[in-house]
């Protein structure tokens, strides 16, 4: 069991309005087995005892599923580019080397206003879902579950898209701060399933419009999002959203129902 000594370059900003800056901290005697957030806990414990304010960051489940943790490490959301498909909470210190300097910044995008230190407001993602990321089925109105067989592959593909944890790493990693991967994953999840067909066009148009209105950038097919996504959501979903959008426009505008 080895311990690490690290230099942290952390973004500190007290309030949404104040001007933030990078501060340097030493993280000493960090166990290799600790997770990245446990490393921050250790640093924070030291800061508090020393009478300073701890580094604020978002975290909750610490098992890589809630999507709350949101740190950009060495310029790459969650993983710091050291491992693929992990959330920050599942990144372990054994991936770092003794003496490393680690840059820790929030998930940055204009659509994600900063609240404090490493915490940002990602409610824009909820707003995209509210615009159409659902199947409108009143509680109690559902038919018997096995009345509609669904091809296993279709169901699996829908699941792959639905595995999105809504952390926003796609936006944070995108060179244009686009939310296409997030939006397309939810649209694809629902559009793939037979249950999602009735609202398909409406959903696609509404979600894209909402996404555009919230100040996200535009996708330029760089696929950085896919590489940064802790759940490996595929950019196939983006292609599908593009396709579905064209079809939806044709259907709603021209009356071509394909």
């Amino acid at each position, binding site marked *: 069991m080895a311990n690490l000594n690290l230099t942290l370059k952390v973004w500190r900003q007290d309030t949404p309005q104040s001007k933030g800056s990078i501060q340097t901290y030493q993280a000493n005697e960090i166990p290799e087995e600790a997770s990245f957030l446990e490393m921050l806990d250790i640093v924070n*414990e030291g800061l508090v005892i020393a009478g300073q304010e701890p580094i604020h960051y978002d975290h909750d489940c610490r098992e890589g599923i809630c999507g709350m943790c949101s740190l950009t490490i060495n310029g790459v959301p969650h993983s710091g580019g050291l491992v693929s498909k992990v959330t920050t909470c599942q990144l372990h210190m054994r991936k770092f080397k003794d003496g490393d300097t680690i840059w820790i910044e929030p998930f940055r995008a204009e659509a994600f206003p900063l609240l404090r230190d490493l915490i940002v407001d990602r409610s824009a993602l909820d707003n995209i879902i509210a615009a159409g990321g*659902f199947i409108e089925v009143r509680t109690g109105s*559902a038919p018997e*579950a096995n009345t509609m067989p669904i091809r296993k592959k279709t169901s699996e593909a829908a699941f792959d898209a639905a595995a999105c944890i809504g952390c926003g790493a796609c936006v944070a990693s995108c060179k244009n701060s686009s939310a296409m991967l997030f939006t397309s994953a939810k649209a694809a999840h629902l559009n793939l399933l037979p249950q999602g067909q009735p609202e398909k066009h409406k959903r696609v148009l509404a979600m894209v419009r909402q996404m555009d209105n919230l100040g996200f950038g535009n996708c330029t097919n760089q696929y950085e999002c896919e590489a940064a996504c802790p759940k490996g959501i595929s950019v196939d979903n983006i292609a599908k959203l593009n396709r579905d959008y064209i079809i939806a426009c044709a259907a709603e505008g021209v009356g071509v129902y394909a």
Partner: protein
Amino acid sequence: MKDIQFPISDFMPDACIPEGPVDQKWTKYKREAKLINPSNRRKYTVIVVGSGLAGGAAAATLAELGYKVKCFCYQDSPRRAHSIAAQGGINAAHNYQNDGDSVYRLFYDTVKGGDFRARESNVYRLAEVSCNIINQCVAQGVPFGREYGGMLDNRSFGGSQLKRTFYSRGQTGQQLLLGCYQAMEKEIGKGNIEMFTRTEMLDLVVVDGHAKGIVVRDMVTGEIKSHSGDTVIVATGGYGRVFFLSTNAMGCNVGAAHACWKRGAYFANPCYTQIHPTCIPVKGDYQSKLTLMSESLRNDGRIWVPSTRELAEKVRNGSIKASDIPENERDYYLERKYPSFGNLAPRDISSRAAKEACDDNRGIATSGFGVFLDFKDAINRMGKDWIAGQYGNLFEMYEEITDVDPNDEPMMIYPASHYTMGGLWVDYNLQASIPGLHVLGEANFSDHGANRLGASALMQGLSDGYFVISSTLPTYLTSIKPGTVTTAAPEFKAAEDEVKARLNKMMNVKGTRTPDDIHRELGQLMWDNVGMGRTRESLTAAIERIPAIREEFWNNVKVAGTTVGMNMELEKAWRLGCYVEFCELLCYDALAREESCGAHFRLEYQLDDGEAARNDAEYAYVSAWEYKGVGELPVLHKEPLTFETVNLAVRSYK
């Protein structure tokens, strides 16, 4: 050691269980239930605290019905509630496998799994609506596992001999919660739900004996605000983090339930805390939480420890690997002790068996607190690809955390605090002992008795949220006039002032220990004394130590920052402030229940073969505790449990 005499009250609120045979109670209830005209529903404001499966489902459903809903969660989005972390699945009595399942069997298994300490009527209702839940979720687009023919697939789970568990790979909770979250967002988009994220409930406001609102802290600005409504629904999950290390999320806390308790709601069966058998063992004292590996792994994994202490020691110091140990030197203790259920024995039994093996010095992992979960045979039988299809993400997760690939070496697992069956006491309407306060999901006590079966928590949360509360809420709402109480009522101001005073008091201690540090100490005490095995001595010792920890908190806690703006240390301190008061109740309840049942295992009360010795004659009741002040003994109210349908039997999984 002095004997503690708990004050016992003869009074017990009516559980409002409908008359008639158990399988007709819910039908009868719905037939006779009060209704509210659609145009009148919008006059009622419903406050929902918590946005997990129970809270989220309730918020969405009530908003669809036309009520004005205000929903609160401490996370930055309702999608992040800890229901999301449930892995294995959700039970339902659909009998798609044609293996003899029925509503009655699900009901019976749940009552038996709960060691006959649950209310029959509630459990039957749960089993009854289980199929509706699956129907609803499928319609919402939840991608459940399917067979090639396109039909829904099932897997088996602990405590059942049937395959009745629906699943979405290892992320069932996530998919169910997203379905529920999407339904909520739909209503948020329409303006029917007003959502308050990053908002934590700190107090319940009771006006003229009725729950009429809450006091919250805006976790971004630090403001203390009040919200009034016609009824309050609390769905804030369990109190597993009383042990500090648990599989709960870091933010999970007892705060809301504790506030309700202090305002007069009875807290029922707090000693029923479930320890999950398959978690990754503790690695160091910096550890913040424990990670659960789904119980579904027990379908194909075999649990064992080395058959001798010497071998175990060699594994611990790393001189041999698990794969080096030959078959005849492995003790598959669950298969040995429980031949018919084997590795699928219920959670409490598996957990305790692991503890026994480790107490016998045959544990593995560096700490000695671990057992093997081995997939070698399953891999040989079905192939690596098949295993990857079943458990791929769980294997990846395990490897990510421990740096060991379960394909090569067996997993190491150990029990950890996971779920709490106890909770606020509710009647059949899910109404607490304070009129107007409704409690849903893990936060209430009603359906799991002394032990919860796997894949039943998701079922209960959604049952309460989607199907029960929508039918039972009008019973209360029709008894009041909507909109009569606003935040102008003096009770709100008083509650706000109390909360502010408490926050300031914490802030001004300016001691030397962080909240986490004190919480860790409290957690260790609780784990050691009130964890998997409890004795009169251990409980009394804990009860004697707790006031000192509480003193330590109020005299030596160091909360950085101020009450203004974001302050995660203050959040932790507030939650710990609740735990240092609440933990005593857990001990009291465990001490007062002088029997072993389900997850509550008193070492004094066991059968010759080490099984829990229930005492139905004296303890077949729900212990509902009434708050009487910090450090004061709570008053015990007893709700007798009557079993009209199932026969009380020794719970045997042999």
